[in-house]
């Protein structure tokens, strides 16, 4: 796999009033890799995601995706270009069934003629066939997570950002999720960036990890490097000591 960067973030800053949520963050994600973004609560991970995917307008900095500057572009354009994401708090289409939800995503690259084909493929891949006709409002957390992943996958992204997809899952559900993500990366070459608190998922999946604390990037490297980095330990333990 080439290590050409698929996403480049330069000096991204996002403020909310007086609060600087993301401060001067720069990072690069190589194509075809699985990378992780970790940090204590409130470190600005979701804000960073939102700024990259067009839900927030950055106050400073640039986001370059596949060589094109997408800073501040609307989310639907970014999706069309090949970047998709899931949400931290699952934002399901509660009135729609699983199949309909995935179909919405599938329309991104498919017309009426072959959209259902894509839907079938994604449902099978994420093993959602049995519950395809159930309404999202009736689903449990683990299923909802998979549906959220499925609909993002249906848009056929080159880069998929996952915001705390592993939170609240049991060990079995977690390894199932990780299996799907690994297959997605290996079989279809989708680059993944996961924001996570669940260390098992981060260490088990990611080849490279970025650490965010209080809005700034404090470390990056392989899981081993990051795990032994004193600054990272302090960021987590320091927070733990206060609590």
């Amino acid at each position, binding site marked *: 796999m080439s290590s050409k960067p698929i996403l480049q973030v330069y000096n991204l800053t996002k403020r909310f009033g007086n609060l600087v949520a993301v401060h001067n963050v720069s990072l690069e994600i190589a194509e075809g890799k699985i990378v992780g973004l970790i940090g204590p609560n409130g470190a600005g991970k979701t804000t960073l995601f939102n700024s990259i995917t067009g*839900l927030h307008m950055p106050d400073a900095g640039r986001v370059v995706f596949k060589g094109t500057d997408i800073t501040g572009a609307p989310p*639907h354009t970014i*999706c069309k270009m090949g970047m998709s994401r899931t*949400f931290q708090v699952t934002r*399901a*289409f509660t*009135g729609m069934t699983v199949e309909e939800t995935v179909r919405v995503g599938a329309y991104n690259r498919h017309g*009426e003629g072959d959209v259902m084909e894509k839907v079938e493929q994604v449902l099978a891949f994420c093993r959602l066939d049995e519950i395809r006709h159930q309404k999202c409002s009736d689903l449990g957390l683990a299923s909802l997570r998979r549906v959220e992943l499925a609909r993002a996958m249906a848009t056929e992204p080159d880069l998929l950002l996952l915001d705390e997809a592993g939170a609240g899952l049991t060990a079995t559900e977690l390894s199932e999720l990780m299996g799907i993500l690994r297959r997605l990366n290996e079989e279809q070459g989708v680059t993944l960036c996961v924001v996570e608190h669940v260390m098992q998922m981060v260490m088990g999946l990611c080849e490279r990890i970025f650490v965010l604390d209080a809005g700034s990037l404090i470390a990056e490297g392989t899981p081993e490097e990051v795990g032994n980095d004193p600054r990272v330990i302090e960021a987590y333990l320091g927070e733990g000591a206060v609590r």
Partner: protein
Amino acid sequence: MSNRWKAINRALLGVALTVALAVPLLIGSNQYNLVLVTTVLLYAVLATAWNIIGGMAGQLDLAAFAYLGLGAFTSGTLLIRWNISPWLGMILGGLVATGFAVLVGFPLFRFRVREVWYALTSAALVEVLKVAFVMWEEVGGPVERYLPYYDFSLYHLRFGTYLPYYYILLAFLVVAVLVNRHLSRTRLGFYLRALGEDEDAAEVLGVDARTCKLKALMIYAFIVGVVGAIYSCMYGFIHPNFFSSPASTEVAILGIVGGMGITYGPLVAAIFLVSMREFLRANLGGHLESLYLAIYAVVLIVIALFRPQGIATFLQDGYHWVISKVTRSDHVVKADSTGV
């Protein structure tokens, strides 16, 4: 959906259509009754079209009669001045209404402009157009402008009785229903539903919120504008009072009470509520007229609080129950909010 169920579906639709076609014959030669059912049909068409912007795109549009009035004035003026047939006039009326809708919708559907602003703008639009057309002496003015009278003229779309209008509107209802169904089964419909559920999540999936809402608005405005041309022919004149706020609110209420997103919902609501209104109007005389408006308002509030899915869902549930008993099949109740 099992094939048997589909067949029953089709049969029932056929029955419904036949009944609808036969209604004017069934109610006899009582002109009042004919006016009543035609009015019910009129509102059913408007509310079914409203469903596209209200139920599917999730925008509380309160400007139905703004677009209707524009269609009426376009067609009526063309007829009065240049003897252009309303068959052409209605297309142009639809286009004028659509153009106007785009003017209003374009700035308001931008990302992050809160949805309520469209509702407010549309509410005010009707009144403002009324004032504008009263002031615009050449085309409007405070007095009715009468369309040429004919006992039976297909070219001028003028008839001595409401009977032809009934069938024309019935055809329009079928068209509106078909448009609804087609939309709900294709990309735009799915995108609109997603937007209605969660706009941010939909955007992130590639749904261009603004374009989708605009498309829905344009389809709705066009249909309503075309109906406006027919409206003017039915009444035989055009007048700025066509731009009626209460009537526009009624259309929205029918759409909401019937069940937003349910194709047949508005029709059901129209049958109940519009009949009630006409009945009250005929029997209570002028000074208690606002009573029906008060009843509409109460119905809206009650439905919004206690059965927001709409009254058509009662019928839907009943229908599904009956069907499953009749076919004795284990058929899956599809979570399909687009009606039968």
